């Protein structure tokens, strides 16, 4: 086991392979506050990549309702209850518990949980269920008594992937050019070690080809400078994909760096697993903090505070307004006056978005035609 630096945990940790970060690291930001669980991303991914035989049950992308939704069933709870403690030093942001690599049992590289076929049978388990019963006579007075939120999930293309650590054949690799984690479909022999090891359960066994498969980060699009299908098709504009710099090399003009590293408003999912996942979430603002701390670590309170104050932070607002406004990957951006502009790798403009939507007030009566404009009930 090598010692590697995991910046999510603010400490070093054990990993089977030495630190070897890619030249660029694919990263995503998902704003949970904007997701409506329309599953357009799920369907886009499904029709693009997993409509084959043996892939019937696979969802490389899924959106589940928290707190009770989970696919496969209780994927997170089943592993969390095997990891003792999970304490954080909140002053320093250092994780004091054990990662899935440090908690591995004798003879294993990773602490994992292996789902059964039944665990994949209910992809919409807990959908739209809120945290508790709504009392009779309850009414909305600014804060809901109960809560729920939608958690969109894909492969995290982790810096220290559990699947890579577990594969005895080295059939899974992380691309040096963009950090996308792939299974070599000619090398895998279907041992399913990755299925057990991935803490996010985003590697899947194909019963027909008898080998494992996973989200490929839509690499054919990435190679063309375009964002993945799940990002492009998101009608709620909750997603952005780009490349995340190393923490010490964060660039203020990279929207992903601005949101993740500089403003620290997007956080990794279950950082305590230790894989350094690269999908970053804006935590939901209305959910009890205890729950969010377990999901997103100790940075939650500050992230929500910053998020709520976004209208006063033009740099951050500018980065957020790039979401869903271009199919291209935005490598840098500039917030200038009333607009934010995104640029591709060559510096060409990919999108230009106003910081404030212009408002047009239409007069009730059109004086030219004499018609009255009014809403039709």
């Amino acid at each position, binding site marked *: 086991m090598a010692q590697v630096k995991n910046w999510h945990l603010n400490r070093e940790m054990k990993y089977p392979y030495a630190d070897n970060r890619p030249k660029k690291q694919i990263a995503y930001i998902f704003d949970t506050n904007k997701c409506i669980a329309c599953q357009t991303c799920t369907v886009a991914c499904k029709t693009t990549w997993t409509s*084959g*035989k043996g892939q019937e049950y696979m969802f490389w992308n899924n959106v589940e309702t928290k707190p009770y939704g989970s696919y496969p069933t209780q994927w997170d709870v089943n592993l969390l209850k095997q990891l003792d403690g999970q304490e954080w030093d909140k002053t320093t942001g250092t994780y004091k518990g054990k990662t899935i690599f440090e908690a591995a049992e004798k*003879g294993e590289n990773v602490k994992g949980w*292996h789902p059964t*076929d039944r665990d994949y049978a209910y992809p919409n388990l807990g959908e739209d269920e809120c945290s508790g019963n709504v009392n009779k006579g309850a009414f909305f007075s600014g804060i809901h008594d109960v809560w729920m939120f939608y958690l969109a999930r894909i492969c995290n293309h982790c810096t220290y992937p559990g699947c890579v650590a*577990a594969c005895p*054949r080295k059939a899974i690799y992380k691309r040096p050019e963009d950090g996308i984690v792939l299974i070599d479909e000619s090398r895998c022999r279907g041992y*399913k070690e990755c299925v057990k090891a991935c803490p996010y359960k985003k590697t899947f066994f194909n019963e027909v*080809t008898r080998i494992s498969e996973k989200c490929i980060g839509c690499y054919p699009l990435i190679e063309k400078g375009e964002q993945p299908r799940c990002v492009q098709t998101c009608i709620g504009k909750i997603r952005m994909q780009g490349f995340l710099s190393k923490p010490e090399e964060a660039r203020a003009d990279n929207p992903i760096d601005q949101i993740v590293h500089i403003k620290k408003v997007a956080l990794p999912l279950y950082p305590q697993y230790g894989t350094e996942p690269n999908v970053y979430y804006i935590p939901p603002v209305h959910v009890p903090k205890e729950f969010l701390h377990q999901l997103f670590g100790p940075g939650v309170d500050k992230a929500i505070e910053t998020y709520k104050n976004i209208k006063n932070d033009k740099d951050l607002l500018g980065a957020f307004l790039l979401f869903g406004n271009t199919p291209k990957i935005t490598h840098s951006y500039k917030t200038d006056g009333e607009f934010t502009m995104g640029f591709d790798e060559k510096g060409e403009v990919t999108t230009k978005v106003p910081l404030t939507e212009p408002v047009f007030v239409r007069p009730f009566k059109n004086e030219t035609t004499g018609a009255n404009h009014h809403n039709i009930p």
Partner: protein
Amino acid sequence: MKKIILLSLAITTSILLHAQNGVPITSVKVSGIPARDAKSDIWNNAQVSVIPVMPQNVTNPQLLKASVANVKVKSINDGNKIAFLIEWTDSTRDATVDVDKFSDQVALQLPLNPDTVPNFMMGQKKGRVHIIHWKAVWQDDIEKGFQDVKTAHPNYWADIYYFQEKNADGTTTAAKDATVDQFKSKEAKNYMAGAYAGNPMSIFDRKEPVEETLAEGYGTLTTQEKQDATAWGVWENNTWKVIIVRSLVSTDPLDAPLVKNTQICFAVWNGTFKNVGAKKHYSMWNDLIIAK
């Protein structure tokens, strides 16, 4: 005191020597090989060698607990082919393909260079081994037809497969009833990445339940281009009996030579206990004496 030390040394030396040579297996000369008949009287010509197997505890992922204690091996040859009848106790027949199910398996291993026998655990760099590997699920693929999603999940549903071919009479089989035989077009392979990549695990019309591979250390198992070994297994009375047959004199330079006596190892996987890949039972090298 000196005597005790000498005695201990003698015992240790004897154990080591014994371990190096294992349990000898003599392949007796017969006429005609019953390649698919473990009950044939011809097998009575051969003596049983009981080979102890141990849980793989050298490299991760390990098998911590054994569920198989030994394999009973008989070998015969007819001057052209050599056959091994490998028998072990297993109270469950595991051949289901599913996300959390694992197949019973057995493999034998021979050194490519019998003069410098490499590491018993899949060989080493510059010490290649030839492995012949049988799986119960492959046996079912041949005996019962390809073990499809529907085999494990009879009530599974699929609305449509975009690339499903029409039947010869122009009709279309409902997606849920379609078999992999109807997915042979080039376009269909685009939707089955393993088959597209030519992965030896993704063969839909397997002819033999066995695979010939090469290895030179952990994680290096590589399918041989030329596949000419055959095998057949039968499970009854809580026992697997698997016959593996290969050429005695092979023209394939990647097959281990059997022109003179050599060494042989065995590995067994018990599907019930999630044995797969490195999680297996292994034996040390054993002398293989080939009577001609």
